[in-house]
């Protein structure tokens, strides 16, 4: 009971936040200047065709009616039809979601593996010249525009050296029997490499700095001193007593990093023409494809909000000192 209550309260708050974001989304897209039909109504359409389109999207009704139609549709997973593709938005988003998730998780796994090891190493090398040089370098990677890093990697490893393809998820004309076959093919992986490394280089700073400062904290605790007194070897103290305890908060940050990464994806996917949610959002916004832009935004928001909740709950369960009473 006592462990279930914070979970329920948090989930309820999540639903409230989701509702608020959905409402903001609706207002953002309806109250903006510009004709939302511009992308859909071609000047060559007849008056009857235009009227039919207005009725089809419910755009002739008052705003509050549009809002309830919108909420009702959302509850049924109905996001409308894309103005440009003339296919259901939900279908299009589900098609692109795996590409974005693969990019996000592969880059974060690389970033966290590297960041945790390098962070522990830097804590070990505290006050050395090496540390003095490494820290500003890590901060500088956090200060890079991700899309610029992508451009530099693209220019060097694709255009100059020709080691990796310049964009997309696979070479033109290739086809695979199943998604599994596509995602494990050398062709797909070589397309994935550069955008993945771009995001990974940007993201490794957070786990690295967190791990380092946690290690420094943990190594001052009594049980570590105790382990040293017992005569354990330095590596045993660092790994068995230090790293294990410093790791928990870093792992919690992974959930939040997923949310942040999804936002960074927007620009990096655009640089590498990676067909994911972020690039679709940008293209849809540029073409005033309102339903598609809303759908992509909503999907990103849902992942961000869910990841915030997971991070919150992890904190609660991993650190009993935090309560949600």
């Amino acid at each position, binding site marked *: 009971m006592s462990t279930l209550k914070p979970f329920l309260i948090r989930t309820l*708050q999540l639903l*409230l*936040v*989701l509702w*608020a*974001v959905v409402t*903001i989304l609706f207002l*953002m*897209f309806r109250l*903006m*200047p*510009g004709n939302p039909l511009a992308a859909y109504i071609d000047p060559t359409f007849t008056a009857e065709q235009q009227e039919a389109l207005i009725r089809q999207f419910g755009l002739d009704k008052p705003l509050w009616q549009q809002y309830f139609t919108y909420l009702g549709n959302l509850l049924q997973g109905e996001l409308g039809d894309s103005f440009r593709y003339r296919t259901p938005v939900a279908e299009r988003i589900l098609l692109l979601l795996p590409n974005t998730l693969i990019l996000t998780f592969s880059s974060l796994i690389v970033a966290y593996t590297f960041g945790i090891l390098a962070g522990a190493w830097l804590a070990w090398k*505290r006050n050395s010249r090496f540390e003095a040089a490494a820290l*500003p370098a890590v*901060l*500088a990677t*956090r*200060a*890079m*525009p*991700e*899309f*610029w*890093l992508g*451009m*530099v990697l*693209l*220019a060097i490893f694709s*255009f*100059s050296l020709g080691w990796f393809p310049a964009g997309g998820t696979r070479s033109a004309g290739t086809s695979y029997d199943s998604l599994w076959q596509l995602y494990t093919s050398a062709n797909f992986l070589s397309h994935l490499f550069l955008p993945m490394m771009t995001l990974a280089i940007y993201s490794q700073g957070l786990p690295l700095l967190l791990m380092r*400062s946690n290690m*420094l904290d943990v190594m001052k605790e009594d049980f570590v001193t105790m382990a040293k007194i017992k005569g354990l070897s330095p590596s045993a103290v660092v790994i068995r007593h230090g790293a294990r305890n410093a790791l928990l908060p870093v792992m919690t940050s992974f959930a939040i990093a997923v*949310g942040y990464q*999804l*936002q*960074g994806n*927007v*620009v990096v996917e*655009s*640089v590498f023409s990676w067909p994911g949610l*972020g690039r679709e*959002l*940008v293209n849809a*916004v*540029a073409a005033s494809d309102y339903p598609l*832009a809303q759908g*992509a*935004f909503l999907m*990103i*928001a849902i992942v*961000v*909000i869910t990841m*915030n909740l997971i991070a919150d709950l992890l904190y609660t369960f991993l650190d009993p000192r935090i309560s949600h009473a």
Partner: protein
Amino acid sequence: MPDTTIKASSGVARIFEAIKLPVGDPFALAGLLIYALFIVTALAAPLIAPYDPTEILYTADYDLASDLLPGQEGHILGTTSLGRDIFSQIVWGARSALLVGFTAAFMVAFIGSVVGLLAGYFGGHVDAVLMRLADVAFGIPFLPFVIVISAFSEPSIWNTVIAMALVLWRDTGRVIRSQVLSLRSRGYVEAARVVGSSDLKIILRHITPNILPLSFLYGSIAIGWAILTEASISFLGFGDPDAISWGFMLQDAFASQALARQAYHWFIPPGLAIILVVSAGFFISRGYENLLFPKLGR
């Protein structure tokens, strides 16, 4: 009550210290020096830049001065495909970055501080409403939100700045609230209340001076975020078409196939300029952190 007099009289001095003290930290000092260079460049842009950044230039032979390499025809960093001087664009870009960075940081620090003060001091319903608003702000995907607002409103730097501030106050607001919560129960605040000071006076005289360093800390982080975000927005093509910014330069280079032509002299400098200014903000914020939370300082 010695507590009261010390805190009340040293309010201004404390602000001064908060701004000044990170100089002792080598990181923060480096950051401040970079900022000084950056501000001077932005202010003196017309004097430093050899050309108008948007002017289409011609060579001595009356040919379009397009895609010149660094050093050719006296162009320090060469020219763009349209025949514009890259170095002059870098210099003028400092002006956009300065404008975006400082206004956004000011708005973020201001909104965040006001929200944190009100929520922390009054508690109850005020706190509940404001903190639920912060939850909502945390649920909004930041970059997509700024993209949508920038794209659907008049393309101008101000709309981008306002969109950023509407979301980014959340971190500052939460941190300042918890700081105010702990300040509220301190002896000198209790004492002021017993003496009959009004809420407004207590907030302005006794609490605000103590949270200002935190506002500056979050402000200096926000400068970097704002410059990076504006660069992304411009790169995606939703920026102010009249402003020469580093993000715009990168978009121009990307769209003009500078990558395929290996025109590194075109797209490397704007990126380095952004890194320099943004990391300066990070360095300064580290200096503040060491100052404010000595336990973490290492």
